């Protein structure tokens, strides 16, 4: 995508009252959107034992308390493992389905997309309850394959939707041209379509990781003694109200932020690679 032309930029520089009101609206909406995160960040450095805002003083004691909390540490590690595994499987399943639904020529492609998307638009409590009713009698509550399956079920629709939209926005002309020049379906995908839809795939992978990391509603039903981080936090917030949870959330955000930055740098890196390969 090319940047705005010089005349566009000149036009944007003029600030009319309506555009000022528009900017104020955007600012207010962002303030609303970010308020709990920012306040949580501030509260994590509070010296108080309650949630008074503004904090009466500052300290790092809640971060120090985190280091001794084994439950939090184990929850974080378990969540990271689960989210990475779910992301990999969701991308594999999701891209394959998106490709089948957009480029395949068999009947029922629309139904296929709907089937995969169904878990996303189904109330999470119903999925959680259903899994509980299936796995509890089998003695599989809290087992890793069940948790992983639930997370992949929930993240695959995101990958499928985002990637299918990316493929749909790409005219099939390029692939057909490559095909008429003798490229096999595999080569057409790898050399023609994949470089074009790579940003969608990376974006959907990041989305899938985020969804899995934060998933609470379904996981609460099928967890046993080994809990994911959000579940540990859910239990903690109903029991206590001190800033230790805020400190944990800052650490939690740090981990996910690193993951997002890795994904973003990969987009840049792979994007450049694809550009070179395209020549």
């Amino acid at each position: 995508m090319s940047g705005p032309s010089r005349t566009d930029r000149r036009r944007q520089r003029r600030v009319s009252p309506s555009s000022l009101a528009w900017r104020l609206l955007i600012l207010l909406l962002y303030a609303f959107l970010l308020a709990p995160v920012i306040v949580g960040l501030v509260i994590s450095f509070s010296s108080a034992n309650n949630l008074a805002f503004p904090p009466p003083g500052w300290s790092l004691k809640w971060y120090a308390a985190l280091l001794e909390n084994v439950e939090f540490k184990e929850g974080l590690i378990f969540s990271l493992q689960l989210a990475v595994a779910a992301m990999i499987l969701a991308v594999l399943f999701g891209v394959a389905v998106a490709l089948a639904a957009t480029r395949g020529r068999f009947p029922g492609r629309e139904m296929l997309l709907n089937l995969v998307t169904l878990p996303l638009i189904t109330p999470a409590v119903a999925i959680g309850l259903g899994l509980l009713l299936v796995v509890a009698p089998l003695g599989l509550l809290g087992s890793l394959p069940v948790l992983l399956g639930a997370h992949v079920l929930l993240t695959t629709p995101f990958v499928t939707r985002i990637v299918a939209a990316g493929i749909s926005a790409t005219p099939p002309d390029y692939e057909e041209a490559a095909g008429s020049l003798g490229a096999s379906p595999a080569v057409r995908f790898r050399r023609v379509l994949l470089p074009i839809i790579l940003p969608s795939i990376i974006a959907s992978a990041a989305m899938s990781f985020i969804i899995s990391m934060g998933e609470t509603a379904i996981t609460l039903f099928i967890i046993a003694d080994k809990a994911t981080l959000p579940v540990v936090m859910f239990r903690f917030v109903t029991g206590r109200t001190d800033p230790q949870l805020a400190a944990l959330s800052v650490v939690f955000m740090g981990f996910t932020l690193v993951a997002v930055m890795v994904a973003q740098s990969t987009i840049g890196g792979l994007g450049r690679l694809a550009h070179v390969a395209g020549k």
Partner: protein
Amino acid sequence: MKIPRRFDFHIALSLPAIGMVVAFFVVPMLVIARVSFDHYVSGGQQLSALSLDNYGSALTDSLSAGAIGRTIYLTAVVTILTMLASYPIAYFLARLQSRWRAMLLTLTVAPLLTAEVVRIYGWIVVLGDNGLVNSALMSSGLIDTPLRLVYNETGTIIALVEILMPYAILTLFSSMITFNLSLEEAAGSLGAGRYRTFVRVTLPLSLPGVAVATLLVVVLTISSYVTPTLLGGGRVFTAAVEVYRQAMEVLNWPLAAALAVLLLLGSGIVLVIYSRLAKRLEMLTYG
């Protein structure tokens, strides 16, 4: 021209995902339907039966019936507010061409990175009796006693809107960047003003994205129970909250299953309406 194939290899590509959906979704849904007709004995135990008793108590029991009404009301309010708050941000982001866009997109995703419980925590601090809003209002002399903004429906609505906004914004944004900005430029160069360009070009093009985002927000609101549980302070009973309570605390699985089936039917009806709407919009836009 396509050469007709006897077997489309694309079918094989979809098999792993189909298998996963059947094992982790279709089977559990069938089991819910079956258990909803069972007879509840005691915590976690039920007798295989074929009775409608659970549906009867779900619909007549004042707590369960009230929970269904509360869910409908809450979903309508939260969805409207979320879409109204999300569209301007998505539109703003989609039109932004500078390096600010990446940063602001990250800021939009940032709340998503934070666990729902943490944001609920943040809202308790912002809206609580000695929180940001109340201390600001009291020190400015506008009110004498703090407003009750948490542990009730007000707090639940505020937090749900904020929690669902990133989903709506990202969905709207990704639909807005797929349609070509050059269409807007074309409208502008043909003499259409900013307002006219928005109403005649941008808004119609973004309607499929709006439909999908609305669908997402409705379903997420219907099934949310973490926020109503923690921010409702035990006063906001939605159907989803009741399913969780029956399943995990009372251990009355047949009643939980019956409530879940009703919840599924409710969201199913909404989905049918929306898919028709979305299809019609697609026809209007591309047809």
